[in-house]
């Protein structure tokens, strides 16, 4: 009884048993299994656990935790500043983050509710009942109508077709837009109504949920007339949640996986945990600052006790200690003093750094999606940002590892050539022409003839039997689907009997197959579809029906696929096509040698090759084959292995028919893009699964390899020692001949050999090569190459580009993963950090966006540290003048608001809009990318530079004000004196102005927003201070700041002092900048100069006009600029033909048509 109530441990077995419509067996000890309900939960929080869970997650961050500790210390011991000073910023930071995360989670909740509450129809006691999606249980029979998505993973029971088939599209799961046929087992396919299904006694046994979308192993047991019929179930029987029903009126299916156990839910991606180089340096800097903080606190504590050893300082008559102070123990006092100093100086760690960086990344990443230059008109796709954490990493890339097919090429296949029975053919005007006959045919092909070529040649020139068999093989051996436009799906799937509907369109998961079937159609052998069990083709108008017996699906290990057919003559035939390496070894007849030669020739031309073969079976042989296949397909355990065995048994003793050569067109501007990347100092490696010859020829045509390059080869190595020898030889050649550029070709096998023993030597060879091409690579090998690069001593930043599922591992492994929205589904895009529609967009993404993001965030980080040093060092210096008594220099409110109000906005706006050089210049001069490589703006040297400058400025603020005040004289005309708060406020005022102006000096791109926040921040500081000091705040227990600011500013001397201190802080900085710019200009600065040379630079368009005269004096121009005069007619061309850097202008890269039309 207890067990029946489900107290047993839930489903420990390897399989789950689902009783259809929950008709549990009446007898025996049935143990109901417990399954998840059909609720999809993508949200992270609930209303109840949001606060604790979110707080916990946030305080796991080291910086937040640090501030929490400081806050707690302030609460516990007597510290110089009130807990509010660190509590409020912490609260602010935590709240901002919590609001952002809460909002995101709310959106997820909303989406979840929508999905979970969607109406669905379920069969309950013989009739259709409407219910909500979330109440579907495993075992329920669900009805899905046309164009609806499946609410759970269903095993198809029946459709409105007798055959029990239906079409679905899985675009939302894997992006494949082709129609896929799924089918029901015949026993259930007859139950087409709810009442019939109610009478169904059946059970599904299947594996436990797993994430692989393309794997499903199960069996269906149907009880009919006291007899149990067992049918195998595979992926073709399973309808996945998220997929959509097409061309079919309705289906019934039984839910086997529900809710979070569906394959879609199991495929939810956890966000990538990649961290950028900037973030790593940021953490290093934080640790250094923590060191400075501890040092300052320790020094202060020691000095305090050294000083107080003398009683005249320790306890003068005017400042007696309290009883409590006298009585507390020495050690406790020492510790609490140390902590108090820690609290006093804790602002040196910039609290708002993380929140600002996060906001900058989040907001800044929108610019990628908004970029028109990254928008692809034809596919209507714009760039997509999956993680904003890596924006700046785009500016740091040193190695680009790219896939070939679909990334460099269009993945749009065009049939070009074939070899049949040892004779090479070309396709010319929809006609197969043997080699050598090209000329006369071209001569006679008039437009008129071309129009009717198909009919004319079809009737006049009969094909030889070999040719015909080859074409039939190609047109039958595939898994292509046909879709008819304007099909209403109401049982009229194939409307026209003659089959030559103009609306007919092929859908295939592999573009090669589609190209081949289309090619045979042009040549007169048309595949018209699958009707029932038959595949139908039309050979020159004559309909032939082939009974489809089995499909041996393609997989990456076999690298081939086959169909088993019964020809109209009754002969059982096997057609196989696949990579030449996986077919030729099994071929026993046909002109093998010649075909091999032709395949190599095709590959040399950059064509993708497939070899086609066939095999005839006697009926005995076929029975054996059929039995083995059935056994393997129904096996519940080790099905894959057993299937592979069965396939190997079938696909052998082949008769070679020929080979096909399909061209994959290069994408637009691939060559320019690769050249631009090279100029930017980025090394491009191509990793492909293709043959060496194909890969090399594509490499050459896309400019990856040059004709002038010395191509080194490390291919077809058999053993470790051979490989090592070859590597040594290559290394020597590179050393001997370092003038010429080298390119390296490696294949998968040699690579794994090289990696096994000679990793170092291999990397050395690779790095001295300008271009590396790895062919015949398995997906995991691609990832391995990436990891090898990543972990090599220089730790270069890698970027992987790919479009297919086989690139996913590489995309995930690389520092930055880019998905190309191609034809091979969405998997690469889903797993990438950024997704773009075309390879050429990479140039803008890296050279422009990467550059901008990097300089923005680098300055942001440096500036944050700088401004906090400026902030807290005067506080430290002040301790030397107040007996290390932990007296604060600034008022608590100023301490609190410095980082969150007075200095936060200018840097945020800077970090969103700064452009050192205009985007089009960045793109036309890829070499500018070198200026920021190797994290140069965040190197230890620049960091020290900024920090020292911070200290320097702090000394200026403090000692400037000190010198002003220490002469003890009054600063006011009425002879009255200032106090300590006035002094602190003066230092603070100078600091706010200097720090803001320092950023203004760094800013090169002044939009109205920069002006607004820069001057606005200073103005806000003044207004706030007037306001804060102008009122006796009832809730403050001291009114220290009352009127301090007004009194301060009423003194003329103070104004003069502010001006001179601010200026003298900035002057050295300006001098340094000017000298560096003049004596050692970076190329970035030189291009700025060329831009700036022409006065106001062109702003609104890339098309600029030449400025005729330049008679303005420098001062005049400066005046004009400051006055903000901006006259569009004076806009000048921003880079001239006399461009000193590169003779060739590569600005054409992404000039969009719109902009071009202006010019």
């Amino acid at each position, binding site marked *: 009884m207890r067990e029946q109530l489900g107290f047993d441990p839930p489903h420990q077995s390897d399989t789950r048993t689902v009783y259809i419509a929950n008709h549990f067996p009446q007898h025996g000890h049935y143990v109901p299994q417990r399954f998840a309900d059909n609720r999809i939960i993508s949200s992270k929080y609930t209303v109840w656990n949001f606060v604790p869970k979110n707080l916990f997650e946030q305080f796991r961050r080291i910086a937040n935790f640090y501030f929490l500790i400081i806050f707690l210390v302030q609460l516990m011991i007597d510290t110089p500043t009130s807990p509010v000073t660190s509590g409020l910023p912490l609260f602010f930071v935590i709240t901002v983050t919590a609001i952002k995360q809460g909002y995101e989670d709310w959106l997820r909740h909303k989406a979840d509710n929508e999905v979970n509450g969607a109406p669905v129809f379920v069969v309950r006691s013989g009739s259709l009942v409407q219910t909500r999606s979330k109440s579907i249980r495993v075992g329920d029979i669900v009805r899905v109508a046309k164009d609806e998505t499946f609410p759970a993973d269903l095993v198809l029971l029946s459709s409105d077709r007798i055959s029990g088939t239906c079409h679905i599209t899985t675009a939302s799961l894997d992006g494949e837009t082709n129609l896929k046929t799924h089918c029901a087992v015949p026993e259930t396919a007859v139950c087409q109504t709810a009442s019939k299904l109610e009478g169904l006694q059946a059970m599904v046994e299947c594996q436990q949920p797993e994430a692989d979308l393309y794997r499903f192993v199960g069996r269906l047991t149907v009880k009919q007339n006291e007899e149990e019929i067992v049918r195998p179930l595979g992926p073709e029987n399973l309808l996945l949640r998220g997929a959509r029903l097409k061309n079919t009126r309705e289906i019934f299916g039984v839910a086997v996986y529900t809710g979070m156990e569906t394959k879609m839910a199991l495929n939810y991606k956890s966000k990538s945990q990649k961290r950028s180089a900037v973030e790593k340096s940021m953490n290093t800097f934080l640790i250094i600052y923590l060191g400075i903080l501890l040092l300052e606190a320790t020094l202060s504590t020691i000095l305090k006790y050294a000083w107080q050893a003398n009683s*005249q300082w320790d306890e003068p*008559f005017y400042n007696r200690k309290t009883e409590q102070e006298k009585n507390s123990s020495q050690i406790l006092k020492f510790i609490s003093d140390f902590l108090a100093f820690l609290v006093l100086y804790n602002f040196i760690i910039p609290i708002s750094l993380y929140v600002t960086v996060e906001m900058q990344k989040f907001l800044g990443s929108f610019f990628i999606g908004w970029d028109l230059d990254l928008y692809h008109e034809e596919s209507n796709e714009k760039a997509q940002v999956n993680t904003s954490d890596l924006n700046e990493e785009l500016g740091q890339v040193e190695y680009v590892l790219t896939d070939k097919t679909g990334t460099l090429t269009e993945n749009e296949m065009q049939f070009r050539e074939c070899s049949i029975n040892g004779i090479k053919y070309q396709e010319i005007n929809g006609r197969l022409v043997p080699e050598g006959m090209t000329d006369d045919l071209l001569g006679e092909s008039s437009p008129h003839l071309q129009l009717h070529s198909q009919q004319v040649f079809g009737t006049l020139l009969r094909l030889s039997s070999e040719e015909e068999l080859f074409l039939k093989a190609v047109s039958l051996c595939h898994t292509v689907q046909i879709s008819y436009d304007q099909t209403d799906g109401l049982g009229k799937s194939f409307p026209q009997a003659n089959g030559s509907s103009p609306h007919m369109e092929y859908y295939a998961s592999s573009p090669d197959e589609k190209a081949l079937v289309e090619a045979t159609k042009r040549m007169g052998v048309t595949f018209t579809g699958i009707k029932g069990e038959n595949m139908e083709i039309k050979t020159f108008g004559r309909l032939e029906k082939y009974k489809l017996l089995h499909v041996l699906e393609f997989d990456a290990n076999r690298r081939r696929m086959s169909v088993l057919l019964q020809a109209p003559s009754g002969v059982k035939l096997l057609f196989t096509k696949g990579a030449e390496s996986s077919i030729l070894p099994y071929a026993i007849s046909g002109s093998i040698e010649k075909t091999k030669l032709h395949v190599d020739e095709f590959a040399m031309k950059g064509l993708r090759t497939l070899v086609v073969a066939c095999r005839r079976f006697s009926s005995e042989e076929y029975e054996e084959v059929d039995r083995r296949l059935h056994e393997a397909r129904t096996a519940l355990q080790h099905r894959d292995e057993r299937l592979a065995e069965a396939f190997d048994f079938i696909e052998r003793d082949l008769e070679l028919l020929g080979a096909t050569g399909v061209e994959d067109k290069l994408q637009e501007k691939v060559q320019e893009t690769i050249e631009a990347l090279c100029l930017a100092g980025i090394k491009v490696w191509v990793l492909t699964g293709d043959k060496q010859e194909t890969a090399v020829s594509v490499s050459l045509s896309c400019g990856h390899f040059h004709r002038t390059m010395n191509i080194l080869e490390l291919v077809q190595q058999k053993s470790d020692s051979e490989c090592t020898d070859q590597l040594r030889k290559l290394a020597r050649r590179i050393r001997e001949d370092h003038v010429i550029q080298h390119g390296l070709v490696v294949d998968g096998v040699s690579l794994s050999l090289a990696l096994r023993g000679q990793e170092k030597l291999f990397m050395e060879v690779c790095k001295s090569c300008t271009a590396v091409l790895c062919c015949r690579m398995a997906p995991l090998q691609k990832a391995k190459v990436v990891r090898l690069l990543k972990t090599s001593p220089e730790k270069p930043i890698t970027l992987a580009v790919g479009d297919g599922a086989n690139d996913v591992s590489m995309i995930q492994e690389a520092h930055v993963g880019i998905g190309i929205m191609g034809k091979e589904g969405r998997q690469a895009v889903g797993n990438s950090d950024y997704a773009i529609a075309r390879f050429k967009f990479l140039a803008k993404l890296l050279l422009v966006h990467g550059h901008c993001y990097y300089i923005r965030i680098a300055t942001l980080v440096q500036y944050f540290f700088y401004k906090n040093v400026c902030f807290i060092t005067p506080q430290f210096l002040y301790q030397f003048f107040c007996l290390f008594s932990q007296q604060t220099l600034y008022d608590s409110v100023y301490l609190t608001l410095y980082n969150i109000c007075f200095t936060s906005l200018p840097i945020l706006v800077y970090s969103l809009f700064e452009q050192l050089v205009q985007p089009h210049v960045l793109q036309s001069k890829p070499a500018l990318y070198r200026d920021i490589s190797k994290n140069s703006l965040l190197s230890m040297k620049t960091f020290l530079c900024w920090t020292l400058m911070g200290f320097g400025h702090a000394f200026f603020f403090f000692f400037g004000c000190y010198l002003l005040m220490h002469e003890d004289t009054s600063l006011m005309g009425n*002879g009255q004196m200032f106090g300590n708060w006035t002094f602190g406020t003066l230092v603070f005022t100078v600091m706010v102005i200097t720090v803001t102006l320092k950023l203004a000096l760094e800013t090169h791109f002044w939009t109205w927003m920069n002006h607004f926040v820069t001057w606005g921040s200073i103005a806000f500081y003044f207004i706030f201070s007037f306001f804060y000091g102008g009122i006796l705040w009832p809730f403050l227990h001291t009114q220290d700041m009352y009127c301090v600011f007004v009194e301060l500013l009423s003194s003329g001397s103070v104004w003069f002092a502010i001006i001179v201190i601010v200026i003298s802080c900035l002057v050295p900085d300006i001098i340094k900048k000017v000298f560096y710019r003049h004596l050692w200009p970076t190329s970035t600065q030189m291009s700025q100069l060329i831009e700036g040379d022409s006065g106001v630079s062109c702003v609104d368009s890339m098309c600029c006009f030449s400025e005729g005269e330049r008679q303005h004096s420098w001062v005049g121009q400066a005046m004009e600029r400051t006055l903000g005069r901006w006259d569009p007619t004076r806009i000048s061309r921003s880079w001239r033909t006399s461009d000193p850097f590169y003779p060739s202008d590569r600005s054409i890269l992404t000039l969009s048509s719109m902009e071009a039309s202006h010019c």
Partner: protein
Amino acid sequence: MKNQGTTNRPDNTAFDQQRLPAWQPVLSAGIVIPGFLLVGLAFIGIGVALFVTSRSIQVLENDYTGTGSSVHCSECVNPKTTPCTCQLNFSLSALFQGPVFLYYGLSNYFQNVRGYGSLRRPSSSCAPYQYDQNTTIAPCGSVANSMFNDTFTLYQLVNATRKTVPLDGKGIAWWTDYNIKFRNPPEVDGSLAAAFNGTVKPVNWPKPVYDLDPTNPANNGFLNQDFLVWMRTAALPDFWKLYRRITEGEYASGLPAGNYTLEIQYNYPVANFAGRKSVIFSNTSWMGGKNQFLGIAYLVTGSLCVVMSAVMLIVYAKFNSPDEDF
């Protein structure tokens, strides 16, 4: 599935495309050299003006600690001699331009240490001077308790007779302190003393707070100018505080040449923390008292700018990089 009707095409706005109109200044020599020259010359001008102004201000400072190098008031150093009055004689050879301000100066005196002012935690902000034998001290706290209590009287010696120079004690504290920030408790029956009933005077004080200035009833309680001046704690360990202004009668235009005697009530002990006391006569300009720093700072910064612009010019002439063609 993509909706065919909508387009993903991003908006072609200047903001989205990062093409906002922007001013792009370049820190090049063409701007910086003349800029530096201008700023430098302006600063030198201001510096000279400030320096001259500062030079015109007269300051007369006398240390009267009585120990060490100080000769004045050495008779009062012994703390047993209380009350002690000492005299400080000085003579002016020319008119000391008015209005003249009289300051007292303390050095080595840390008014800025934490715990001295009301800088302790709120609960014990006045400790250890919150209570005197369980009676509340008014005004409480260390600052009030340690209020400076030397007094000065100035005489001009005219024909061997001492003529009192009137000292004006009004307006030495900040106007806002006196009129807004500090308030006396409401008077009870027209008597300020009654308002302070239930409180005791600070331990170190000779007389209660409502009796600070016997000459002027309006200058008592918390609203005593000397008290307010003292309560505005100084930022640095050496400080001056304004004691009196000489603005009345024949001395309004300054102290004429002649001999003067300053009579000092020597009460305030500074010996135990090695402090020093001094008394200062000074006049002011619009920029306040004598302050050499500003003038020097402007002169230095200004000349630095001028020199740097010259250096930059030389560097530019010598190392004209080929890419610049201005």
